[in-house]
């Protein structure tokens, strides 16, 4: 809890004969995080080199490339396969050897046929484009080319040309100009071209075709339709192959990926001519399992030992160690940065506080139910994506919290539920109708509650800051950092006590009536001032420049008022939507029903639905992002460092193939 899983560093050494069994066994166990060997010329690794891949790695890789290219051509993945039996490895290997080349050839042929056909469609389309200007011409296309003494020019010009030489011209008016085809003698060609260029001639090439342009275009269009049909046939064939071999392709992809990863594992090991060594990390609770299993498969011919960890801050990979309900929140931690091995892991706290903050912002039974339905309904869209599932789980937790707070605040789409708010009321009186005005709103009280949340959250952040300093720093720096964190707490509470000693605030202790000591200062004022000064001194000891940050204490605490402020804005939007839709449009029409009134009532219903849909979207954004920001900016900056390595064990979770 609040700590990643404890890890142990293991060294495995054996002779080269044991290489394959060790790799296979480590891969099967799927718990060993390999520290890649890098040849840096370290003394302790003198004589070791990076290993060579196992035999057959290149053939497996080339089969894998083939499968992956087919899979990407088909657009298939293993995500689409659910609840299927696992393939037997031996049988699968045989069919990879026998069937894969046949399938690959077939698919390749179909693909090349299809791309050829697609290219021919392009070609026809270009020809149609070239013929398009000549569609209305009264002459067949062959009359424009093939003369010895006459040349034809075709193109668009701005206005009708006046030519002094003898010529034959056909023109067609276009938007903003003319399309012309001119036939002149070869010797006049240059002069004619010049005078046409003055009219901004844009030449087009005359297609060398036979027959009238419109007939030719119709012909090509027919051809394109024919090609489309052929492509359809090929696509149907490909779909057939895809459906038939989907399972085979995906299961062999999985098998070969596992084989390639194992065959290439020696690239991460340190080897000599006769032996190899590998260093890696295993969760401490599983160390004996690794010892025993390796001993068994190598019949004792392997040396495994636990190494001392030199630098906890850099070394161990980080695997979260949280109860089940906190797992979804790990997504938010990974978005920010995975915790370092030695520091406090705030995931558990965040998984509790985040939904509470969400509920405070969007405390409405109606919206909560919509979000709850969404968190189940959208699940099929994120199938197979771990992050997507985590997000849906977070949404589910948040919507439950939203419903609970909705019951407390007595809100349902901005309407009041049959009971009075169980806690402070958020109902806002709006306009003359003042929906829900019968419960007096307690907004100042709610704002103070949110400030309390901020004070406690930030104090906890600073306490964890001191804890992290004690774990991660060394020597003199350690005590400086710890005292600086305590200093920040003292400054914050000093300011708070000073304020309490001067101004009585609702829901906060009133210290202004404390006995006076001297000069109108009471006990609390002096205590607050002392805390403030001592705190400032502690901060300044670590780094005097940090004193510049002292005003952020106030802005960070006040920042928590967003929990109520953003929540109230969503209440206001809901109330206004209800007021416009029901109060202003639907109710007056219902009082005196007319045919036009029925239409207006429908408009009112649309306004109602649109307003609440908008508010739901804003609620997800506001309710989701603001608590996240409060964690990231106000909370994490007090203690969190992040930058831990992800624990990524050597192995895979097999979905489609059996373990061999």
């Amino acid at each position, binding site marked *: 809890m609040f700590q990643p899983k404890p890890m142990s560093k293991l060294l495995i050494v054996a002779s080269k004969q044991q290489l394959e069994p060790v790799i296979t066994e480590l891969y099967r166990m799927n718990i060993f995080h390999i520290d890649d060997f890098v040849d840096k010329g370290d003394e302790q690794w003198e004589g070791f080199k990076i290993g060579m891949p196992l035999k057959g790695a290149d053939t497996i890789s080339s089969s894998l490339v083939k499968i992956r290219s087919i899979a990407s051509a088909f657009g298939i993945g293993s995500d689409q396969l659910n609840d299927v039996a696992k393939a037997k490895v031996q049988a699968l290997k045989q069919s990879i050897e026998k069937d894969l080349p046949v399938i690959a050839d077939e698919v390749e042929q179909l693909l090349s046929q299809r791309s050829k056909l697609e290219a021919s469609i392009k070609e026809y389309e270009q020809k149609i484009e070239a013929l398009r200007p000549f569609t209305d011409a009264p002459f067949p296309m062959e009359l424009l080319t093939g003369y010895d003494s006459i040349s034809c020019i075709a193109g668009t010009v701005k206005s009708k040309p006046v030519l002094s030489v003898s010529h034959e011209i056909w023109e067609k008016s276009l938007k903003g100009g003319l399309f012309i085809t001119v036939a002149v003698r070869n010797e006049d060609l240059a002069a004619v071209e010049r005078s046409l260029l003055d009219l901004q001639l844009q030449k087009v090439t005359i297609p060398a075709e036979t027959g009238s342009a419109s007939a030719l275009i119709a012909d090509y269009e027919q051809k394109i339709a024919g090609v489309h049909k052929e492509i359809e046939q090929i696509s149907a064939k490909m779909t057939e192959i895809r459906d038939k071999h989907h399972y085979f392709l995906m299961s062999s992809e999985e098998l070969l990926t596992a084989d390639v990863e194992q065959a290439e594992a020696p690239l991460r090991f340190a080897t000599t001519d006769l032996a190899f060594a590998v260093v890696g990390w295993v969760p401490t609770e599983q160390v004996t399992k690794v010892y025993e299993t390796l001993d068994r498969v190598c019949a004792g011919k392997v040396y495994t030992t636990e190494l001392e960890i030199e630098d906890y801050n850099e070394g161990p990979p980080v695997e979260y160690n949280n109860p089940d309900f906190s797992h979804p929140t790990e997504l938010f931690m990974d978005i*920010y940065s995975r915790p370092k091995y030695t520091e406090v892991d705030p995931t558990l706290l965040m998984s509790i506080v985040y939904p509470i903050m969400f509920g405070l912002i969007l405390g409405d039974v109606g919206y909560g139910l919509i979000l709850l339905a969404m968190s189940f309904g959208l699940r099929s869209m994120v199938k197979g994506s771990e992050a997507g599932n985590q997000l849906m789980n977070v949404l589910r937790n948040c919507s439950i919290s939203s419903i609970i707070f909705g019951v407390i605040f007595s809100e349902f789409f901005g309407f009041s539920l049959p009971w009075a708010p169980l806690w402070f009321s958020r109902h806002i009186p709006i306009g003359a109708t003042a929906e829900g005005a019968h419960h007096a709103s307690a907004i100042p009280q709610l*704002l103070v509650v949110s400030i309390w949340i901020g004070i406690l959250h930030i104090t906890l952040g600073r306490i964890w800051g001191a804890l992290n300093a004690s774990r991660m720093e060394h020597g003199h720096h350690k005590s400086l950092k710890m005292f600086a964190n305590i200093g920040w707490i003292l400054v914050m509470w000093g300011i708070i006590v000073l304020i309490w000693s001067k101004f009585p605030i609702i829901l906060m202790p009133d210290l202004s009536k404390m006995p006076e000591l001297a000069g109108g200062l009471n006990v609390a004022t002096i205590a607050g001032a002392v805390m403030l000064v001592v705190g400032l001194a502690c901060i300044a000891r670590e780094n005097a420049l940090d004193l510049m940050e002292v005003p952020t204490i106030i802005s960070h605490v*006040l920042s928590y008022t*967003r929990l*109520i402020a*953003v929540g*109230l804005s969503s209440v206001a939007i809901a109330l206004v939507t209800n007021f416009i839709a029901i109060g202003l449009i639907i109710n007056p029409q219902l009082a005196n029903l007319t045919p036009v009134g029925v239409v207006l009532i429908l408009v009112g219903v649309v306004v109602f639905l649109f307003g609440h849909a908008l508010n739901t979207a804003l609620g997800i954004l506001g309710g989701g992002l603001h608590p996240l*920001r409060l964690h*990231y*900016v106000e909370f994490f900056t007090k203690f969190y460092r992040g930058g831990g390595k992800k624990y990524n064990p050597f192995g895979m979770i097999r979905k489609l193939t059996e373990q061999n």
Partner: protein
Amino acid sequence: MAAEAVAVEVAAATASAAGLKAVGAGLAVGLAGVGSGLGEMGIGAAAMGAVAENKDMFGLALLFTVLPETIVIFGLVVALLLMFQ
């Protein structure tokens, strides 16, 4: 007559006080919103660029983008206090 005139005057004064409060609340939210918008403009554009370069930056980019948002929240809180206290 005089009493009536006073009553009308008092009513007008309360009404204009309420109106000024509403105007003040509107200005608080509106101006604060413009301010955070201007602040987020540059940060958001740069953050988008950073995320396009490297997806891992998303968390940090989001954090930087929403930093100026606090200003508008303060505006909103001031407006709420004006309207409801």
